[in-house]
């Protein structure tokens, strides 16, 4: 699958841009702050119905405007699909595929798989478990619609259950556990199925991840992603029963798959504490490459790969390794770089056709096109 054209209206620093991309390698060069990453974000938005970098849609609107619009034409073999997104302040976000509006945004997710590798990805290692859960949920949701529906329902039931705990706390009255039973039943059923799906996924994910990690890092230390859930030791209903006193005290639910985590292990040690910055970066890139391969395998076509400022962070050996993959494994690719000579040199080296765009303050110009 590849993105053929992109039209942006008042998206971040792009006022009105019409772009046509190469089905293979697109290099976006420009100074810091020129809008390279914003362009990647617009592509990401079309795939995930939200920004990768901004927490709200409002932040994606050009300052002083009240809306933004993105249109992308995707091509897969001989079929062409047009995806548009319209966001207007104070109105419902609208996503359309070939002019047909989605009733639920979740229906769109997974149809246009995109993998983004960005410098701040190490947050997966360094920050809380929520980011790690979101990363893996994001992949599984793209493979399995039922998983996504279950997750949405689980979160709704969890919100209501926590709301009821708060209600009793605010009133200072004794908790009536009968009122919780229907939530508990719902959480158990959905939670068990989510737990099973996550467990199965990590079994599929691990060998692919290890393959890429060892490809990027030439040594034999073992790298592992372990799925960690309290459900491994007890049933959902027993777990909920055990945490009741804590639930009352903290006014939220303290047992469930919303507390799951993924442990990153490098040679028997926790990556977060003992891994060097380089090891952490390679670990995260290997996870993203595994994400790419698994999506490719399940969808039957290659996702779009977005590489944000990646060459800055890697040593020559890893860059060489990554370029080998670019040459053989990947489909359409978008690379940003502040230094055009470097990227061009690297790409000439592997001899793959590429198109270079120059970006300056939200204006994009075709810089160089190399067709083979």
């Amino acid at each position, binding site marked *: 699958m590849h993105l053929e054209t992109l039209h942006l209206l008042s998206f971040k620093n792009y006022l009105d841009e019409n772009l046509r991309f190469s089905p293979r390698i697109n290099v976006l060069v420009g100074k810091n702050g020129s809008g390279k990453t914003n362009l990647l974000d617009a592509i990401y938005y079309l795939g995930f119905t939200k920004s990768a970098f901004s927490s709200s849609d409002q932040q994606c609107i050009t300052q002083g405007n009240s809306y933004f619009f993105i249109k992308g034409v995707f091509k897969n073999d001989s079929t062409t699909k047009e995806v548009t997104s319209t966001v207007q302040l104070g109105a419902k976000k609208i996503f359309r595929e070939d002019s047909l509006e989605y009733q639920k945004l979740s229906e769109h997710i997974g149809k246009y798989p995109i993998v983004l590798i960005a410098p701040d990805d190490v947050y997966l290692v360094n920050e809380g478990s929520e980011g790690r859960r979101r990363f893996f949920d994001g992949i599984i949701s793209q493979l399995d619609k039922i998983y996504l529906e279950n997750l949405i329902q689980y979160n709704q*039931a969890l919100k209501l259950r926590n709301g*009821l705990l708060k209600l009793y706390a605010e009133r200072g009255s004794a908790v009536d556990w009968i009122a919780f039973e229907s939530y508990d039943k719902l959480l158990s059923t959905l939670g068990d199925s989510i737990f099973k799906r996550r467990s199965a996924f990590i079994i599929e994910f691990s060998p692919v991840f290890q393959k890429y990690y060892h490809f990027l890092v030439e040594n034999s230390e073992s790298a592992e992603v372990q799925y960690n859930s309290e459900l491994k030791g007890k049933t959902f209903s027993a777990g909920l029963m055990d945490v009741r006193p804590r639930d009352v005290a903290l006014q939220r639910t303290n047992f469930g798959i919303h507390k799951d985590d993924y442990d990153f292990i490098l040679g028997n040690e926790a990556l977060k504490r003992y891994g060097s910055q380089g090891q952490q970066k390679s670990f995260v890139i290997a996870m993203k490459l595994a994400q790419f391969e698994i999506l490719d395998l399940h969808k039957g076509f290659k996702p779009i790969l977005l590489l944000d400022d990646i060459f800055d962070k890697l040593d020559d050996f890893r860059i060489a390794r990554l370029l080998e993959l670019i040459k053989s494994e990947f489909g359409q690719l978008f690379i940003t770089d502040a230094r055009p000579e470097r990227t061009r040199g690297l790409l000439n080296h592997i001899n793959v056709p590429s198109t270079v765009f120059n970006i300056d303050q939200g204006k994009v110009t075709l810089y160089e096109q190399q067709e083979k």
Partner: protein
Amino acid sequence: MDYPSKLIEDAVNQVAKLPGIGKKTALRLVLHLIKNKEENTFALTQALNKLRSSIKFCNCCHNISDTDLCFICTSHKRDRRILCVVEDAKDVMAIENTSQYNGVYHVVGGVISPMNGVGPTDLKIESLVSRLNQEQSEVKEVILALSPTMEGDTTAFYINKRIKDLTGKITVIARGVPVGGDLEYADEITLGRSILGRTLFN
């Protein structure tokens, strides 16, 4: 919006508090009242005042009533062995209009909805429990007729737990495809449920 008179503004703000009425509609209604005869407006406000001060809720089923016990609870023609639990008075009217039901009601006054600050004790569930606990209770079947939402299901689940030893059987209204509708237009969940809950042809 700027109004030519403070009196109009006050009236518009009051009317606009009603459900389904925005500021523009409220203004239209207020101007309409001014344009028409004075008596009409007073008749309206009198009716509203009287409604508010005299309206009662049935002591037994909590339905809206003119008397301490509503006409359904006092009627000799109703079957006291069947009791239908509903959210509010609108639901009683809806079920009455079907002419398919001859039992009595219990209006719980809403559903358990933590996000809106409604817990089980805010509903008339205790009164249902004590109603079924009474020695002279003849109830053999309780029908739960609540909204088919997560909140409605939670409430039904809770009520079921509280009353399961106090009555013969507890049933819920069927969920399925509407009469006169096309199957292809029914949503998947409803259609799926109606397949699972299918009934014998006769």
